[in-house]
C-alpha cells in the first residue's frame, strides 16, 4: 500500500496510520467513511426516536401536559428534521459509500477527500442543529419551515436555515462525487445496462440531489436573510409572498421524498433476486421506472399546496401529474412481486425486511394516491392521516429497505453473520410496532385529529383517544424492537458466526472479493461480461435453462499466481476534518447575524482548502501520475 511512500514535502505531511482512532479521523477510504456514516446515523436515530417517544407520550391521552407547547413544537420539528436529514439520507449515503465502488468494480470513489469532507460536514451540521437546544431553543416551525412564521425570531428557525444548508453542502458534494464515480469509474465491461439496480437507483438519487439541493439552498438563504438580516422576501407587510417559500420548498421537497425512497428501492431490488434465486424480473423496466420517477418527481411539487394559494387549473394539473407518477412506482412493485413469483424463496431476515418494504410501501403509496384527489386532500390536509401516510412510505418504506440492507451487507463489511434468530424477532416486532403506531393514525386523522398540535383535544371523543393510546403503545414495541436490533448488531460484531465470502449465494460484484472487504477492494479489477456478473461466474445454464454450478468459476480473477497489480490507494488526510470545522463559526454567524463569525468561518474554510491543495500526494496527481502501469485491460473488452 502506498501510504507509506509519502514524501514529506512542504509544511504538511500526510497522516499514515491505518488503525486506531487517528486512522478513522483522517481516513479517505470509502469503506471506513461508509461505516462512520452508519454509526453516526444510529446516534441520530436514537435522538430522533427519543423525540418521537416524547411526542407519543404527550399524545397518549387527551388534554395531557407532559410537555409545554413550546417544547412540543421543538420536539416534533427536530424529530422531522433529524429523521429526514440526519437519518434516512445519510443512511442511504452510508450504502452509497460502501457499495458503489464495490459494485462497479472500483477501488474508491472519484474524489476520496471530498468524500471525507461530506461525512464531516454531515456530522458537524447535525451537531450544529442539535446545539440549538442549548442556545435558546431548537427550531419549532416544523420541518417544512413555512414563512412567515419561520422568519419570526420566536420560531428559532434561523438554526434550521443555517443547519440544513450546512447538511446540504455535504449532500451536494457527495452527489457530485457519486455521479462522477458511477459514470467514470466502472470496471471494464460494466456498461450502463449491466449495472446493478442499486447503482442505477444511486445514480438517479444523486442526480435528484444535485438538482434539488440548490433550490432548497435558495429557500433557506432567503429565510435566513429574512429572519436575521432584515430582508423582505416573505414579509407580507412590504408585499413579500409567503407562498413563494412554499413553492421553493416543495420544488425541492418532492424530489426529496424520492431521494429518500429510491436507494431503498435499489437495495430491495438487490436482495429479492438473491433471496428468490432468480434474476430480477424486468431489469430494464425497473431501471427506466426509476429514472422516470426521478424525472417526473420534479413536476408534481404543488400537490403539497392544494389547500394553499394555487388556482383551480394548477390544482387539476398537479393532481393529474401526481396520479401519473404512481404508474412507474406501480411498475416497480409488480416487478418485485414477479421476481419472487415462482422463485425458491428463502425467508432470511434481509428478505423479510424487503417483503415488509414492499407491503408497507404499497399501503403508503395507496394513501398517497388519495392525497392526489383534490377534494379528498382538503379533508386530510394537516391531519394525522397525512402523518400515517408519510410514515408508511418513509418508515415502512425507506427505513425497512435500508435495515434490510444492513442485514444483507453486514457479512460483507464484517465477515460475520448477524443472528438470524434475533433478526427475525427484530423484524416481526418492528412490523407489529410499526403498524400499531401508524395504522391507527389513518383513523384518528380521518376523524379529525390535527397534526402538529401539542394537546390532543378531548372533544374529538373516546375513539380517537383509543387510537392514540394504541399509537403510543406501538412506540413501546418499537423501542423494544430497536434494542433487539442494537443488541444483535453489537453481539454480531463481537462474536458473530463467520460468514464466508458469499453467504447469500449473491449475484453482484461486491461479493467477488473476500469479506470483510480488503483495503484495496479488488486485488485485480474484474472484467465484466454479464449483468449479475458474479452469478455468471458461479453458474452456467443447462439446456433447460436451469442454473448449474461451475466448479471454481468464481476464482477466475483470483488466480494466486496472477501478476500482482501496482495498486495506488488514496492517502488519509487531516484536511477534510480540519476544514469542515469552519462551518461552525460560519453557521453561528448566520444565525446570530454576526459578520465577524461569518468572516472567520469563511477564512477558515479557505485556509482549509489551501491545506487540502498543498498537501503532498503520494498517489501522484491526475495529470502527473507517479509512474505506474495503467490498469491492465482498463479499456479493453467493453464492447
Amino acid at each position, binding site marked *: 500500500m502506498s501510504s507509506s511512500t509519502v514524501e514529506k514535502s512542504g509544511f504538511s505531511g500526510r497522516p499514515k496510520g491505518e488503525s486506531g482512532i487517528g486512522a478513522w479521523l483522517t481516513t479517505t477510504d470509502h469503506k471506513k467513511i461508509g461505516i462512520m456514516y452508519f454509526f453516526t446515523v444510529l446516534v441520530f436515530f436514537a435522538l430522533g426516536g427519543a423525540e418521537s417517544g416524547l411526542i407519543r407520550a404527550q399524545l397518549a391521552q387527551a388534554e395531557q401536559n407532559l410537555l409545554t407547547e413550546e417544547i412540543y413544537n421543538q420536539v416534533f420539528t427536530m424529530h422531522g428534521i433529524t429523521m429526514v436529514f440526519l437519518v434516512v439520507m445519510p443512511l442511504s449515503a452510508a450504502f452509497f459509500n460502501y457499495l458503489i465502488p464495490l459494485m462497479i468494480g472500483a477501488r474508491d470513489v472519484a474524489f476520496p477527500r471530498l468524500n471525507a469532507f461530506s461525512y464531516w460536514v454531515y456530522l458537524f451540521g447535525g451537531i450544529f442543529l442539535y446545539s440549538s437546544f442549548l442556545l435558546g431553543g431548537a427550531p419549532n416551525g416544523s420541518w417544512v419551515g413555512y414563512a412567515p412564521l419561520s422568519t419570526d425570531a420566536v420560531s428559532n428557525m434561523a438554526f434550521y436555515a443555517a443547519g440544513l444548508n450546512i447538511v446540504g453542502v455535504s449532500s451536494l458534494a457527495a452527489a457530485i462525487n457519486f455521479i462522477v464515480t458511477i459514470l467514470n469509474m466502472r470496471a471494464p465491461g460494466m456498461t*450502463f445496462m449491466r449495472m446493478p439496480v442499486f447503482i442505477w437507483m444511486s445514480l438517479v438519487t444523486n*442526480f435528484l440531489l444535485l438538482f434539488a439541493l440548490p433550490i432548497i439552498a435558495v429557500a433557506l438563504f432567503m429565510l435566513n436573510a429574512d429572519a436575521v438580516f432584515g430582508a423582505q422576501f416573505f414579509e407580507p407587510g412590504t408585499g413579500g409572498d409567503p*407562498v413563494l417559500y412554499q*413553492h421553493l420548498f416543495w420544488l425541492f421537497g418532492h424530489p426529496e421524498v424520492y431521494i429518500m425512497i429510491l436507494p431503498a428501492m435499489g437495495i430491495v431490488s438487490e436482495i429479492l433476486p438473491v433471496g428468490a434465486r432468480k434474476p430480477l424480473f424486468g431489469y430494464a423496466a425497473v431501471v427506466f421506472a426509476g429514472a422516470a420517477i426521478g424525472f417526473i418527481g*420534479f413536476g408534481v411539487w404543488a400537490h403539497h399546496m392544494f389547500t394553499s*394559494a394555487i388556482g*383551480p387549473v394548477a390544482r387539476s394539473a398537479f393532481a393529474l401529474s401526481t396520479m401519473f407518477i404512481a404508474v412507474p412506482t406501480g411498475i416497480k412493485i409488480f416487478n418485485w412481486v414477479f421476481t419472487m413469483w415462482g422463485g425458491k424463496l428463502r425467508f432470511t431476515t434481509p428478505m423479510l425486511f424487503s417483503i415488509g418494504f414492499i407491503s408497507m410501501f404499497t399501503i403508503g403509496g395507496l394513501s398517497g394516491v388519495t392525497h392526489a384527489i383534490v377534494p379528498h386532500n382538503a379533508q386530510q390536509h394537516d391531519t394525522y392521516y397525512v402523518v400515517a401516510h408519510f410514515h408508511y412510505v418513509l418508515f415502512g418504506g425507506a427505513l425497512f429497505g435500508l435495515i434490510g440492507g444492513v442485514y444483507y451487507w453486514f457479512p460483507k463489511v464484517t465477515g460475520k453473520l448477524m443472528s438470524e434468530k434475533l433478526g427475525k424477532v427484530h423484524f416481526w416486532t418492528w412490523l407489529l410496532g410499526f403498524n400499531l403506531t401508524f395504522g391507527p393514525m389513518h383513523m384518528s386523522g380521518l376523524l379529525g385529529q390535527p397534526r402538529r398540535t401539542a394537546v390532543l383535544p378531548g372533544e374529538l371523543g373516546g375513539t380517537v383517544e383509543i387510537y392514540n393510546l394504541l399509537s403510543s403503545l406501538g412506540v413501546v414495541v418499537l423501542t423494544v424492537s430497536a434494542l433487539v436490533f442494537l443488541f444483535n448488531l453489537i453481539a454480531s460484531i463481537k462474536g458473530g458466526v463467520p460468514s464466508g465470502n458469499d453467504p447469500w449465494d449473491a449475484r453482484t460484484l461486491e461479493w467477488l472479493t473476500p469479506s470483510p472487504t480488503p483495503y484495496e477492494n479488488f486485488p485485480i479489477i474484474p472484467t465484466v461480461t454479464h449483468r449479475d456478473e458474479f452469478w455468471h461466474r458461479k453458474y452456467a445454464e443447462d439446456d433447460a435453462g436451469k442454473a448449474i454450478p461451475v466448479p471454481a468459476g468464481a476464482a477466475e480473477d483470483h488466480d494466486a499466481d496472477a501478476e500482482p497489480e501496482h495498486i495506488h490507494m488514496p492517502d488519509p488526510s487531516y484536511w477534510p476534518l480540519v476544514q469542515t470545522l469552519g462551518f461552525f463559526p460560519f453557521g453561528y454567524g448566520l444565525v446570530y447575524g454576526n459578520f465577524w463569525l461569518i468572516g472567520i468561518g469563511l477564512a477558515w474554510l479557505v485556509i482549509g482548502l489551501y491545506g487540502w491543495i498543498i498537501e503532498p500526494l503520494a498517489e501522484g496527481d491526475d495529470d502527473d501520475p507517479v509512474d505506474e502501469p495503467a490498469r491492465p485491460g482498463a479499456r479493453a473488452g*467493453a464492447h
Partner: protein
Amino acid sequence: MSSTDAPEQASSTDEHDDHHPTPRQYVNIAVVLAVLTALEVSTYFLDFGVIAIPLLVILMVVKFLYVAGWFMHLKFDSRVFGRMMYTGLFLALGLYALAIIVILFDSATIA
C-alpha cells in the same frame, strides 16, 4: 444525462490534441462579444420599440452560446459535459417558468 451505452469508452480522450482554437480565434470571439454587448447597451440609449426586448433576449442567448461553446470548449470537448450543463439549464428554465406561471396566474382564486 446519460442513458445510452453509445458514447462510452474514450470516444473523446484526445480532447487536447485536436483542433483547439488559436489565441487569434479567441480574440475574434471576444471582439464579437464586445460588439454584441455594445448593441445590448445601445437599446438603453436608442429607442428600439417593441423589438428591444426580443432582441436583448436573442443577444443574451448568443453571448451565452459563444462563451460556453468557445471559451468553455463545449464545441470541442466531450458531449457529456454539455449534457450535464444543459440538463441543469433546461430543468431550471422549465421548473421556474412553471412555478412563476402558477404563482402569477392562479394565486387570486382560492376556490
